[in-house]
């Protein structure tokens, strides 16, 4: 193991600025990374995190400022230059090629070859070593990457980084697609890297992860670094939130109103099953009630939601809304009955990204606004504008393409869609994935408001804390079975995990 000098800096950034078409994304960022440390970068969406790491990766050229790498001022002209220096970047959208094997992915762009012929066995051997180093020696280098889980794809991406001689690896929200077990794995890999003297820049929304893995923190707000190199151990969470948002935040979950005893049952799910995925799912949701599904990734929670919605065709059981049974596997039947789904993958399942906000808001209702098949875009825009104001969607411009919005605001578009539609049942799958801390509080408050307005809400989240904080009733799901149904007040995070572990073992 290398002896690591923790005092001299590996990378120093001073006064970095970058503008796009006249708008400044970075207005002066300082950074100081030491060898072998885990340096967390914290900031809300739009704070400039992505621009910063793309500048370090050679994707963007900074307008002003200085980058000092191992004591020398450098310019990082392109991604290859970054790799040559020893800086590797793992993007949120993983840059692995599904159709190639692990080994082929690891050596993508710098294939081991003699005279144009790839040296396959050597590549496989080296890949195996890298995988072992990352604690995943059980993966075969010849496995096709498309068949790997998101977590294992990250490992491949990291192995590729290590196949170059790197000193710094930048990870952009690596935990966003992982469940808690996989996050633990990721952390042990990160610790392994730092032990070898490699510095890790770790970007995340999740404060508790910083507590667990981070050595020091740099906080970005509105394109500026508001704090550089704070010691994690010395900085209270409240202080971090204040630095990040510029305001004091005590808590994110708004208080719950108790559900009235005489509230009618709106959604009734009876013995629902999807062959090979889940079975025997029974629950009911009353008007104003929030039911949460807690469980690990792969437990079947998202599939349950999608089957209730009719996006998947159930193989047994029934779904009824307001006492009326819905047709199996029919989304339009569910939508007509007043059920709305906010899907897990906002970008690929929820939004038509290139279309403006108003088109996305009225995607379920444009036919209703139309007269004789002719669109009434004026009415659509005004309905969208109403929701934009009610939900404080930013920017408040109905003609802005959805792709330009932050995660939190994109989530609001989906909620607005169902508000315009006028739902009785809302199914929310990962409503805060990729949404930063400040905007989360807003989404939580919104969900509560929707419940208070009489909606029956079912929420799925990989963050157990979120399910417990929002739901009135919790269903614990593991391996396609509902283990228990309890009032949220009678169970805590440990209780849920306990059940899940036992359930999975049984």
């Amino acid at each position, binding site marked *: 193991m290398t002896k690591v000098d923790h005092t001299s800096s590996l990378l120093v950034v001073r006064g970095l600025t970058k503008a*796009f*078409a006249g*708008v400044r*994304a970075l207005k002066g960022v300082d950074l100081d990374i030491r060898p072998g440390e885990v340096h967390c970068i914290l900031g*809300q969406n*739009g*704070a400039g*995190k*992505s*621009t910063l790491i793309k500048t370090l990766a050679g994707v963007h050229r900074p307008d002003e400022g200085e980058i000092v790498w191992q004591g020398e001022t450098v310019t990082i002209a392109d991604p290859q230059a970054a790799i040559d220096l020893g800086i590797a970047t793992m993007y949120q959208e993983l840059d692995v090629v599904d159709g190639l094997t692990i080994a082929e992915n690891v050596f993508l762009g710098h294939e081991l070859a003699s005279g144009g012929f790839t040296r396959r066995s050597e590549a496989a051997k080296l890949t195996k070593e890298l995988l072992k180093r990352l604690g995943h020696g059980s993966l075969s280098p010849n496995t096709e990457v498309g068949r790997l889980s998101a977590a294992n794809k990250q490992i491949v991406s990291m192995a590729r980084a290590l196949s170059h001689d790197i000193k710094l690896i930048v990870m952009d929200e690596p935990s966003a697609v992982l469940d808690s077990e996989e996050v633990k794995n990721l952390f042990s890999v990160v610790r392994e890297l730092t032990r070898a003297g490699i510095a890790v820049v770790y970007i995340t929304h999740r404060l508790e992860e910083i507590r667990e893995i981070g050595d020091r923190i740099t906080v970005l707000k509105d*394109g500026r670094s508001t704090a550089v190199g704070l010691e994690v151990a010395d900085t209270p969470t409240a202080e971090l939130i204040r630095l990040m*948002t510029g*305001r004091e935040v005590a*808590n*994110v*979950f*708004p*208080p719950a109103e108790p559900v009235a005893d005489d509230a009618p049952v709106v959604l009734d799910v009876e013995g629902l099953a999807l062959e090979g995925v889940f079975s025997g799912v029974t629950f009911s949701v009353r008007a104003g009630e929030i039911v949460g599904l807690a469980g690990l990734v792969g437990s079947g929670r998202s599939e349950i939601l999608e089957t209730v*919605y009719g*996006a998947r065709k159930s193989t047994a059981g029934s779904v009824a809304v307001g006492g009326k049974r819905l047709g199996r596997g029919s*989304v*339009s039947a569910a*939508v*007509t009955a007043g059920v709305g789904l906010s*899907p897990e993958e906002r970008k*690929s*399942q*929820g939004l*038509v*990204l*290139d*279309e403006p906000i108003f088109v996305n808001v009225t*995607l*379920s209702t*444009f036919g209703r606004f*139309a007269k004789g*098949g*002719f*669109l009434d875009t004026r009415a659509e825009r005004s309905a969208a504008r109403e929701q934009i104001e009610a939900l*404080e969607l*930013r*920017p408040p411009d109905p003609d802005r393409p959805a792709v*330009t*919005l*932050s995660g*939190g*605001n994109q989530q609001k578009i989906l909620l607005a869609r169902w508000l315009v539609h006028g739902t009785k049942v809302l199914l929310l799958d990962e409503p805060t994935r990729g949404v930063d801390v*400040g*905007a989360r509080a*807003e989404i939580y408050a919104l969900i509560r408001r929707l419940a208070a307005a009489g909606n029956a809400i079912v929420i799925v989240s990989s963050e*157990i*804390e979120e399910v*417990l*904080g929002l739901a009135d009733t919790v269903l614990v799901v593991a391996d396609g079975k509902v283990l228990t149904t*309890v009032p949220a007040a*009678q*169970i*805590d*995070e*440990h209780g849920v995990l306990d059940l899940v572990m036992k359930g999975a073992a049984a």
Partner: protein
Amino acid sequence: MSEQTTPGGAVAAPTPPPTPTEPTPAKESGIRRLLSGSVGRNLGLVVALLLIVAVGAITSPDNFATWSNTLVILRQASIVGVISIGMTFVIISGGIDLSVGSVMGLASVVATIDVAQDLASATHWTVMVLFALLVGVAAGLINGIVIAYGNVVAFMATLAMLVSARGLAEIVAERRTLIVGDRGFVGFFREDFLGVDVLIWIFILVAAAGWILLNRTTFGRRTVAIGGNREASRLAGINVKRHTVWLYVLAGLCAGIAGVMILGRTTAGTSTHGQLLELDAIAAVVVGGTLLIGGRGTIVGTVLGVLIFQTLTNVFVQNNLDSSVQAVAKGVIIVVAVLLQQRFAKPAGRSS
């Protein structure tokens, strides 16, 4: 199970949290935004068309810039133009229809078989039109159902239709050329209205109807939404499969109309009508700025794309250049057009 009533780590706070200000992403300047939009792309096509017209006017000053030559160009553009309008919808939705050329041929044959012609002479020549349109709709219906409900990729399903419709046309026509006997039919397509041929009017009407359908109706919105994000459209409650069927029916209907038009122009039905026309249509649609992956496209762009190719062909003919040179030039134009599109039509800049 624990007695704890508040979930892990959460502290109760009765006040609703204030709105965080999320900075708006980089806003592009007005002009750039306009130019990267459909207006800018169409403006580029207009410039390209004017350039070709200028070349034509300079190289053959006596023959090119005349009213009669303009009508020649438009007449030649009309049939592939009608096909391209239907193709535009299919491509915007993320699909492709390779069968339109041979469906057009089949329609021309079926409309001129003895049964159809006898019925037409006994009643009215529009019976032949009806036969051709029904062939187009039926072929489109089969394409659509196989693609939407059989989950066959559009490329393969319509390739199969391309081959089999051509074969069916040969069988029905017994490899003969079927002459249109009805004087009413032939006469109608010989006429002009306000000095412009009926064929050109049909193209204008189909293009106008296509524009309205795409931009002003729920059908158009569904088409764009499905092309932009199929899964999101499905989960929003749009019946994607049913709409897909209608899209191929529309493309088939346009092929049927084109079949009637070719009959009007040549007064004969044969199985060889419309060969390779699908490729001309796809080229015109894509040069016109419609994304081959779907989600974006305009009728105006498609019309300009058709006109660019036909005007270019005309310029070559006027200068006595042979058709092989034309083909090479067409290929170059397609590549240059797509390259320019990619340069100017970058998605709106993002930063966070």
